[in-house]
């Protein structure tokens, strides 16, 4: 790949992929920006021209905006917390030699292959249904009043469902990281007088920090746009309306493309703020 000729050939061959990717990204972005400055009501008069920053002001001043940002962040934070804490514990567990290890590992990873819509529906109807759900039966077995999960503990329920989906991902990445830990380091620490918990804190956790960073970054990107799980369970009611869901409602339920697009631009900004924060906090881990 060193000669002038082969380099230009390489460029030529990469060009279609690059152009496709750019188009894929730039066209929707440009359209969103374009519509966000227009009054566009498909069922009530169609495209009615430029309105300046009107949509942006209306979106942010609506009473639903700040609660939706908060909901989004609570879901992202909650899921990250649960998946990382449980992921580390599960990874340590799966790393122990035990009977049926192969099967257990596949079982742990299985939820990742279930589509979000399906898994949310299963959770909603099989586990969280206040009359027929397994949880309801469990509660009744102990003589307790069943919880109406999706309305009384709606946000927590969503966090639970999404965590269940993402736990395998976190576990998988953390497991491979744990397996790469040099066992002599643990033995050295053992000889140095570190009890089990200290070994975890001083040796295992620092070793995992890079993997945890990667899990946080990747999950955050996907969790900011959680949608299906909310759509099929609460439909955005009971304080589960995230920013993504709010945009969906503005565009499709209120039939206001301009307003929704303005929301989309805010979502892009929010995602970038979060990403910048994360990079600042955990980025140090990546280049160490």
């Amino acid at each position: 790949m060193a000669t002038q000729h082969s380099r230009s050939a390489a460029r030529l061959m990469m060009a279609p992929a690059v152009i496709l990717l750019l188009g894929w990204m730039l066209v929707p972005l440009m359209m969103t920006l374009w519509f966000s400055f227009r009054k566009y009501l498909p069922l009530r008069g169609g495209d009615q021209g430029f309105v300046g920053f009107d949509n942006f002001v209306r979106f942010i001043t609506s009473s639903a905006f700040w609660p939706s940002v908060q909901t989004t962040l609570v879901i992202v934070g909650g899921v990250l917390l649960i998946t990382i804490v449980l992921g580390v514990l599960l990874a340590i567990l799966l790393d122990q030699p035990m009977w049926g290890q192969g099967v257990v590992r596949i079982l742990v990873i299985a939820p990742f292959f279930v589509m979000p819509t399906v898994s949310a529906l299963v959770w909603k109807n099989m586990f969280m249904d206040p009359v027929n759900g397994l949880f309801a039966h469990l509660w009744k077995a102990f003589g307790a009043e069943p919880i109406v999960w999706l309305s009384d503990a709606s946000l927590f329920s969503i966090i639970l469902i999404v965590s269940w989906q993402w736990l395998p991902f976190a576990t998988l990445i953390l497991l491979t990281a744990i397996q790469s830990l040099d066992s002599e380091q643990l033995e050295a620490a053992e000889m140095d007088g570190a009890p089990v918990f200290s070994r975890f804190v001083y040796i295992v956790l620092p070793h995992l920090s890079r993997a945890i960073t990667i899990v946080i970054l990747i999950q955050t990107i996907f969790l900011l746009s959680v949608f299906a799980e909310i759509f099929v369970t609460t439909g955005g009611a009971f304080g589960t309306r995230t920013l993504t869901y709010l945009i969906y409602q503005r565009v499709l339920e209120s039939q206001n493309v301009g307003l929704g697009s303005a929301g989309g631009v805010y979502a892009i900004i929010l995602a970038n703020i979060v990403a910048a924060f994360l990079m600042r906090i955990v980025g140090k881990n990546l280049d160490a």
Partner: protein
Amino acid sequence: MGRIVLDKVSKRFGDVEVIPPLDLTIEDGEFAVFVGPSGCGKSTLLRLIAGLEDVSGGNIAIDGSDATMVPPAKRGLAMVFQSYALYPHMSVRKNIAFPLKMAKMDQAEIDRRVANAASVLNLADYIDRRPGQLSGGQRQRVAIGRAIVREPAAFLFDEPLSNLDAALRVGMRLEISELHERLKTTMVYVTHDQVEAMTMADKIVVLRAGNIEQVGSPLELYHTPRNVFVAGFIGSPKMNLIDGAEAAKHDAHIIGVRPEHIDVTPSGGIWSGKVGVAEHLGSDTFFHVHDTGLAETITVRAPGEVSFRHGDAIHLTPRADAIHRFDAQGLRIA
């Protein structure tokens, strides 16, 4: 301080007996070296002493008290691993301080000991770096530093120099010997490099398939190997082992002559043969002599430069007082 006594210690992994019951005493302040071919159980034996593996039978006593069931941290031993096993996310200072921190020592004492170890091992220049930013030799020093701050009853080394290049290995070998002179602490050292074994040890333990073949000082092993295995294992280049009619002449089943105990002459020697490869090192010359009718090759070490070439006829005379005789069981005949 650090007397280690193994009493009928054995180790099995599943059905495989890696170490059959074995007795061994390492005296306080002694530098004991375990040598033996790869897979003979040197590391396993060391790890049994350290407590990183449980014994399958027998007892281990350290300083007169039974330590068989004592966890590694409580045995008062420090280990230096082949891979160094430094903590990669901690600075050199924190690495060395780690065992002291785990012992909940107060900060002033920790600082004092770390500073002391750093000056003993010349670590001061890179005390705030991480292990990843150090060379192999420097990492080795840090690993030793981490071991000495605890002031252990004994040090355990598992092939600590095998990842270093030849020149550095010689340097570190001297440093470790120097350290032993200064600290006078018991050291148990595993290696498969017999130069290390010969130069550093007070006592060499030769192992084969988990069995102790001989225990003794380096020169004892050199001059009076107890059997054919030890005779062939200690010494470089290897001792020439000759069986058959020539051995029978000496009333033995096998006789052994070290390469340095054979004189070479152009004619008139006891044995004769043809020079194969001649290795001229300047200080010595090694000849690999073929067609002697004794063994496939006889290795000879002649001091200085001797001008035999490939294919020359050569005559060999073993020194009569340096012939080792072994019986049919391979044991030494006194």
